[in-house]
């Protein structure tokens, strides 16, 4: 069964460092998303991406964040200068289309900023 895959599963980084989280969405899907979940809190939307551009972003997704689809298969989330409060599980998701179509989630990357 097709699935969304994320790497790495766990990333530890020092405060102020740049990190890139990687995702391979399901191959025929057109919409891609990043969500995060701080430990013990709800899953929060960060950004959606369609047709090689950001289509929607939340207030969390500030100038420190960027997304890219560099090669037609990978979908990346970059955090330029990590802060302690960026520590969270980051989930990538993809969907076939918008509207009623469900989003399928990856297993997540646990980011720990020290």
């Amino acid at each position, binding site marked *: 069964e097709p699935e*969304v895959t994320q790497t790495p599963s766990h990333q530890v980084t020092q405060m102020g460092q740049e990190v890139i989280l990687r995702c391979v969405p399901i191959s025929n899907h057109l919409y891609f998303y990043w969500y995060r979940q701080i430990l013990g809190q*709800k899953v929060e*939307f960060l950004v959606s991406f369609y047709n090689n551009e950001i289509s*929607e972003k939340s207030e969390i997704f500030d100038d420190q964040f960027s997304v890219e689809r560099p090669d037609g298969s990978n979908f990346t989330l970059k955090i330029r200068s990590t802060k302690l409060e960026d520590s969270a599980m980051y989930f990538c998701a993809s969907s076939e289309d*918008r509207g009623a179509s469900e989003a399928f*989630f990856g297993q997540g990357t646990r980011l720990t900023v020290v």
Partner: protein
Amino acid sequence: TQLLEQSPQFLSIQEGENLTVYCNSSSVFSSLQWYRQEPGEGPVLLVTVVTGGEVKKLKRLTFQFGDARKDSSLHITAAQPGDTGLYLCAGRLPGGGYQKVTFGTGTKLQVIP
């Protein structure tokens, strides 16, 4: 203010009991999904409901979308320890550019053998 409120937040029941989890909002959703999340893993989609009043069954799980598409419920019959997990409802708001899924506050279910 949470867009999607789930109740109860925590539920601990004995194996074989029935339970219902509720997901409520003051907003109308074009569709609503239910996910289950295990610790340290991503949400796994259980079902999508689209039509007001729709009822879907998945083995011992019954999902209902409210007539006004503002609320939903998940009923589990004869709960088993394997049902233990965090249950999340998530909805899409209507509108042409609205693609994101908004998650509820979650219900943590523990089924005791």
